[in-house]
């Protein structure tokens, strides 16, 4: 059995290929998108055509959704399986999600509830996963303690990813949005911004921002979702991360592995970007308390970082997300916080209780090793896709 993998450079592509191999599925890869992020749809069609004409594939696969790939697969009557690992993925607003050869897997239930009605037989909800074996290879090969940390976080501060700009907006709107942001910052497990923006207000906000995202032709226009998730959601994430690291860095030794500018947080140790495959597992493994702060556009689901920290036998404290108790046992596999104050208290507690911390990390590792590997997940995806 052979499949065609349309790659764009996501960190989990290698893991998925490894998992396919375990099921005896060979992979041919298309790599153009990895090196050229502005590949024209016409070029994409041409490349796919030539690949699909050359050989017979059981299905085409990608991480995240590519409308052009979906359209081509629909013409060739080849199933197109894809796993969404980010949010927001604006390509999901494309009309192409209605294609009947799609098998779209969404890791976030809020996303699923939103998009499932547009193609009920072809859109599924499935959590993310981790590659325990890969991490173990890296961890066993490097016994140095160059990545040991009291508290660490691998990820962006979101400050550069937050394109919300209300400089030109009327003061009332600025105030209203700031009020919503403050309120949302206090709540974990329920993202309510979508509910509190009207279509009218969303359009007004967009109109104040020159160069804002515009849905292309043949996309379903959802300016409310766009403003709520892409613009305000990212802004809340930036604000949340600044506040979390401001508070934590006063009190603990906190390392952040990031490309973001951290000059406003002088006590935070910025250790630059971490290499995903070679350094990140060592960081997760050698840190006493790993943090996950889910970005707000992920409204209910569990981000990849959670699976990866546990897969590296790391101890994790994550923000509460509504899908968390469905997938993990809080306090047994990982720990969850519901406010910044709560996070601070829990860090202090677990720094003082190393045995408890290690036991939870051990449980978490054993649990993802048997339930949440790519091998398990790919098997579930294939059986859902072809049932």
């Amino acid at each position, binding site marked *: 059995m052979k499949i065609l993998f349309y790659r764009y450079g996501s960190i989990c592509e290698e893991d998925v290929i490894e998992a396919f191999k375990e099921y005896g599925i060979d992979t041919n890869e298309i790599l153009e998108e990895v090196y050229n992020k502005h590949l024209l749809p016409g070029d994409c069609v041409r490349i796919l055509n030539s690949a699909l004409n050359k050989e017979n594939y059981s299905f085409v696969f990608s991480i995240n959704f590519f409308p052009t790939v979906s359209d081509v697969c629909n013409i060739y009557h080849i199933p197109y399986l894809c796993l969404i690992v980010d949010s927001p993925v604006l390509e999901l607003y494309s009309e192409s999600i209605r294609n009947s050869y799609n098998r779209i897997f969404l890791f976030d239930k809020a996303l699923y509830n939103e998009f499932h009605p547009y193609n009920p037989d072809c859109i599924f909800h499935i959590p993310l996963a981790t590659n325990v074996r890969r991490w173990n290879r890296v961890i066993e090969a490097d016994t140095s303690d160059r990545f040991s940390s009291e508290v660490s976080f691998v990820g962006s501060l979101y400050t550069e990813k937050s394109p919300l700009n209300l400089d030109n907006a009327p*003061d009332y709107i600025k*105030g*209203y949005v700031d*009020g*919503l942001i403050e*309120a949302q910052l*206090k709540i974990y497990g329920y993202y*309510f911004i979508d509910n509190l923006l009207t279509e009218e207000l969303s359009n007004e906000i967009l109109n104040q921002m020159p160069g804002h995202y515009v849905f292309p032709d043949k996309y379903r226009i959802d300016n409310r979702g766009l403003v709520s998730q892409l613009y305000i959601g990212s802004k809340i994430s930036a604000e949340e991360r600044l506040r979390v690291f401001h508070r934590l860095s006063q009190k603990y030794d906190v390392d952040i592995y990031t490309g973001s500018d951290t000059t406003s947080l002088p006590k935070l140790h910025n250790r630059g970007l971490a290499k995903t495959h070679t350094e990140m597992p060592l960081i997760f493994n050698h840190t006493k308390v790993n943090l996950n702060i889910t970005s707000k556009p992920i409204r209910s689901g569990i981000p990849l970082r959670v699976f990866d920290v546990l897969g590296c036998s790391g101890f994790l404290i994550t923000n509460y997300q509504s899908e968390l108790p469905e997938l993990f046992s809080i306090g047994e596999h990982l720990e969850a916080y519901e406010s910044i104050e709560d996070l601070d208290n829990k860090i202090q507690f677990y720094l003082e209780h190393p045995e408890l911390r290690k036991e939870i990390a051990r449980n978490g590792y054993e649990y993802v090793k048997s339930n949440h590997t790519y091998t398990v997940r790919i098997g579930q995806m294939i059986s859902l896709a072809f049932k």
Partner: protein
Amino acid sequence: MHILFFQWNAFMQKGIETAFNRLNISYEKFFYIFSDWDYDDKFCKLFNDKLNSSPDIDVVFSVNFSPLISDICNARGIIYISWIYDAPLHIRKTVSLMNSVNRMYFFDRIQAEHYQKQGILNVHHMPLASDTYIFSDEGINETINNRLSKKEPVFFNPTSIADNDYHCDVSFIGKLYKSDYAYLCTPLNQYYRGYLEGILNAQQNIYGAYLLDELLTDTLLEELNSFYLKASKGTFSVTKEELEFALACEITSRERVTALALLQNRCHVNLYSGDKDERLTHINQLGYVDYYTQMPKVFRNSKINLNISLKIIQSGIPLRILDILASGGFLITNYQPELLEYFEPGIDLIIYEDIPDLILKVQYYLANDDERNIIAQNGYNKVSSLFNFDDKVRQLLSI
């Protein structure tokens, strides 16, 4: 133990007195309506005279907390037990809360914790109670006869309601809360008007989490007060409590009016309220009802009774909920955390999650008479076994 039971026009006093009698508690009564709960020289004189003339009184008991009684008791070393349904506390002399003779029982757990965290001693949590007999037809007649014998009016209500008028699909008793919110917004600039509207909308959208307390920060209050002080030439500013109360009332008002407005075209709705609202044209607006002689009839003759709590009650079970169930009424209510400690949703009462959910549940239960009756009966049984005055009074008096 000999108790002086301070009475005013409060709820629950009748039930408490019945329990005192059943439990053979020695007590006498003192009735007074404060002109001002914080300052009332006439009261202080009368109350001191009373205590002077009855030297065997060793406990004073009241519904809600009176700073004046507390101060008098403290000077005399008499224990002062108060059972409080006032949320938030409408007293300004909060220093009296520190008096060591106080034994305060709040019906809302979070409110009790709030005062405990301030280091105030002898603060406890105690749910309210309701007396099923007082609300029964027999109990109503007893109250009416009692009032007739004392030549009091049967209804403390300008218009009596014909028995037929109580019949309806959905009823709601309560204020529509014309809040000070609009008034408080006027002096603000556009940014802060938007900001308050933002947090207000957020709080209204979230059921089961209370954010206002955390969101009204000192910095925000300072900013807002700079506008009020400027507009009033230095004479007006708000406290956090005042602003929080205004916002909570505004949210409650919007929720109540929205719910009633959406229900009015779908079924027959009776509203019993001192407030009128021009948006509720299809609702039967019947004015006040008398607590003892009319309210239980409202509950029993409405297919569905609605409770929409004042937003500031963070966790506790409001008296309205207990009274509806104790009268044998079927209840649909908003979520309050403490409800789940005693009641099973769907078995004893119904909890709605948001307004669309409320509309669906009203429609469902109007169409299912048997289910409704069973649930009302279960709710009644729970209240009579878990929220009766005898048990609560025993706990309040530690007997």
